[in-house]
């Protein structure tokens, strides 16, 4: 019973996200609170603070990632030396080195996959709190058609994408990695084809969702923006006509409301953009650095003449690329949507 009462109270809190008097941006998650500047009026300054702090925070993680890549190189050098020695079975060396590389790479990849899943969840959760405020602010500004269309589109695509990433794409990254390891160990052509198919499917899913979403926004933005601008103009003209002499003065009251709502919407939007970027930046830098380091390691492995090892590291770099894509697409979706809300009726 107590749980039910608590649930009802929490549900009521969730259903009234907009304050009656002002539009306020939902607070940033605790993890990124210190990245957000108290003075959020200037987007440029806020962004600079986020980048600076994120770079400072990421430095130890990047050193650890570089250390992991050095371990990979050490294994590859050892395998290359053992291959050169007479009497050693190349097949055994290859299997053992693949296992050693996989152990190091899978540990790193697991951390990155969890980081990506957390970032996607955080971005999506923050977006679900920010969207209602931006919708109400745009509606208060007169953009009712645009606000409804933008909310529906963003909420739909955001829920679809975050669910897809959590339930399908992240497990598929693990499948991709497992296939890569198995292919590297056995050299089986069928496994290679399946691995390539999984990678293609992951990339295709992300691309299609982003293309459809931006297409939807472009079309609804033009149609709804024009309809809303016309409706606001018509309202002002009607007020001027209804009240005999001072109708013009009264219609200015509607202008003041629109301007006030616009200012509030901009402030909420700028804060929201900064929070989304603050959630994104550290994981993006970390996974991005890992991606570049693995690419570099793969190139260096090639120099030592151990092609299967180089291919395996390249595959893991590809997985990092996929994780970067997932994190980036969810954040980009929220950023584009917030900017569209801010632009409103144009």
């Amino acid at each position: 019973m107590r749980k039910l009462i608590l649930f009802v109270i929490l549900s009521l809190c969730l259903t009234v996200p907009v304050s009656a008097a002002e539009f306020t941006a939902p607070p940033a998650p605790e993890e990124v609170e210190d990245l957000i500047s108290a003075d959020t009026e200037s987007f440029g300054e806020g962004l600079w603070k986020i980048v600076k702090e994120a770079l400072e925070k990421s430095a130890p993680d990047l050193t650890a990632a570089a250390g992991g890549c050095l371990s990979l190189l050490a294994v590859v050098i050892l395998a290359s030396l053992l291959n050169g020695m007479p009497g050693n079975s190349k097949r055994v060396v290859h299997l053992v080195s693949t296992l050693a590389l996989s152990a190091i790479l899978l540990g790193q990849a697991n951390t990155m996959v969890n980081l990506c899943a957390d970032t996607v969840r955080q971005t999506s959760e923050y977006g679900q709190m920010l969207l209602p405020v931006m919708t109400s602010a745009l509606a208060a500004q007169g953009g009712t058609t645009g606000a409804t269309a933008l909310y529906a589109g963003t909420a739909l695509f955001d829920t679809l994408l975050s669910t897809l990433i959590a339930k399908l794409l992240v497990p598929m990254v693990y499948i991709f990695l497992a296939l890569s390891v198995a292919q590297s160990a056995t050299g089986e052509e069928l496994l290679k084809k399946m691995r390539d198919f999984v990678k293609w499917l992951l990339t295709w899913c992300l691309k299609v969702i982003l293309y459809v979403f931006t297409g939807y926004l472009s079309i609804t933005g033009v149609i709804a923006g024009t309809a809303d601008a016309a409706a606001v103009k018509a309202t002002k003209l009607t007020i001027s006509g209804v009240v005999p002499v001072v109708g013009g003065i009264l219609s200015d009251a509607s202008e003041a409301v629109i301007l006030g709502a616009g200012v509030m919407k901009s402030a909420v939007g700028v804060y929201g953009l900064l929070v989304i970027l603050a959630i994104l930046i550290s994981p993006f830098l970390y996974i991005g650095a890992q991606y570049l380091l693995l690419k570099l390691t793969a190139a260096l492995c090639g120099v030592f003449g151990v092609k299967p090892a180089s291919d395996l590291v390249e595959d893991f770099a590809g997985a990092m690329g996929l994780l970067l894509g997932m994190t980036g697409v969810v954040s980009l979706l929220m950023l584009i949507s917030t900017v569209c809300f801010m632009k409103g009726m144009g």
Partner: protein
Amino acid sequence: MDELREYLLGIVAAAVLCGILSRLINPKSTVGIAVKLIAGFLLLLAVVSPWADIRLENVLDWADSITADGAYYVSQGEMMAEEKYRAGIKERTEAYIVDEAKALQCSLQAEVSVSADAMPVPESVILTGDASPYARQALIAVLTQSLGIGREDIIWN
């Protein structure tokens, strides 16, 4: 997650079964070709069958609930804008009446009521303060002609 695991396991199991069947039978024989065909159908069934369970009504309900949420948030914004707009009209009208009264050499306080329509307009006014009969008549004329407030809706305190 469990459903996805089951789905993937189903595909893997079907693929393993198909692999075993194709190894057991000579692929170039007539039976082999038929088995390969059946195996292909089996694999296709494993891939496609969970998708057939997805009901369009569920997807549409979900989309409807998102649209309903959007409409609710929009109505919240409209309500807020309407409140502010009503307050703005009241404030501006009161300021206009006080200015007109000053021009007629009287010091008045005005309390304007705004209509509850979608298009709010000044409806009635309560005037408090001293004014000469001439000033009262002049002010009533201004209020009825400029603001469209009916003579009976102008109340003097």
